């Protein structure tokens, strides 16, 4: 592991948070209490931006409920969607909060073989992240329209 590349460093903090995979619905509602949304670090994310992002998702969720509309969750390809996927798919019983990182995103489709038929190599990390970002922002536009976001 001499050349290992860290996606996330270790830490220990005083932090109150739920076992999201077990206790939260995909909408961020508390299991057994529909209409009660849990957001921010309590839901199992780490970081200022991540907390605010979940606040956004929870606010939209509560608005949808208030309007009698079906939930409108962020697409899986977006960074918002990747955070929610961590809350659903993390290890219950040993669930740890996370910052957003590109490792949480669904993988890109594999590269096509070259014109000579030789298998493609792997993408370099920077290229991969750029593509993940482009894909995310394209998916975001659809969601933004659906929820009446100002820039849509």
């Amino acid at each position, binding site marked *: 592991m001499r050349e290992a*590349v860290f996606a996330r460093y270790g830490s*220990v903090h005083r932090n109150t948070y739920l076992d999201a995979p077990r206790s939260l619905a995909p909408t961020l509602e508390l299991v057994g209490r529909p209409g009660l949304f849990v957001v921010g670090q309590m839901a199992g994310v780490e970081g200022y931006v991540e907390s605010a992002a979940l606040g956004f998702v929870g606010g939209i969720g509560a608005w949808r409920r208030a309007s009698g509309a079906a939930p409108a969750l962020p697409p899986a390809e977006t960074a918002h969607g990747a955070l929610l996927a961590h809350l659903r798919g993390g290890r219950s019983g040993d669930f740890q909060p996370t910052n957003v990182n590109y490792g949480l995103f669904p993988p890109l489709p594999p590269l096509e073989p070259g014109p000579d038929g030789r298998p493609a190599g792997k993408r370099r990390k920077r290229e991969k992240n750029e593509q993940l970002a482009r894909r995310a922002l394209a998916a975001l536009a659809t969601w933004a329209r659906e929820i009446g976001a100002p820039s849509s």
Partner: protein
Amino acid sequence: MSSAAGSSRVTVVGAGLAGCEAAWQLASRGVEVALVEMKPLRRSPAHHVDDFAELVCSNSLRGASLGNAVGLLKEEMRRLGSLVVRAADATAVPAGRALAVDRRAFSEFITQAVNRHPRIEVRHEVVDRLPDAPLAVLATGPLTAPELADALREHCGQEHLYFYDAIAPTVYADSIDFDVAFRASRWEDAAAGAGDYLNLPLDRDEYEAFVDALLAADTVELHPFEAALYFEGCLPIEEMARRGRRTLAFGPMKPVGLVDPRSGRRPHAVVQLRQEDKHGVLYNLVGFQTKLRIGAQR
């Protein structure tokens, strides 16, 4: 799209970053919001001012570029009309490739926006149980008041509310040397599949060098409210090393039950990695929570 919210009202508990954002998004769509905040009646040990959205640790919202997932997240929020990101952009200070803010100006921006919104009513109260309101958002943060935390624990079950996180470092799978790593689970992890853990063997010299490095490394200072909070289930690795040079070799780095296929023998110690995500991109170092500074972790 019409809000059609009628007389539905949403209670948002906590006027931190998440709560202010939730309140704002609701109010912007025509929903009446009661934003309940316990400051100034009571403050958590980490809070020092009465403004909303107080940044209790650093003033940085981290990377700004799209090459960084948090930069992407902020850009998404920008395009979605996030109040928090708008506030950050308006109060930014130079910080290289990060978005950092003037802490006071940032909190004031958000506090004013929330206070001025005609559909947001701010109430100063301590919420000590789960809200009865049919629609509510709990945004009470890492230092949620004990009574409310207890109410949550009662609802979810003792085992499903945590008070400490223990974040192990994670590494990218494609940066691991698979000529050296081998797959195996320890005897007592019988429920785990044989290949659930990747093991990186260390010989005696490598282990001793690792302990030396740990003992010499810089750690992050604890906030005063975190002092003396270690409990036996969750010791940082450098604290384990401080308690004895061999503690790690009997703890998260124990080689018992594992055989290195290259040598046919049990290694002196191992670093165990466990797959973190379902795609196998990330592995975390099992039991390696730490307060080492990031430079030292490298």
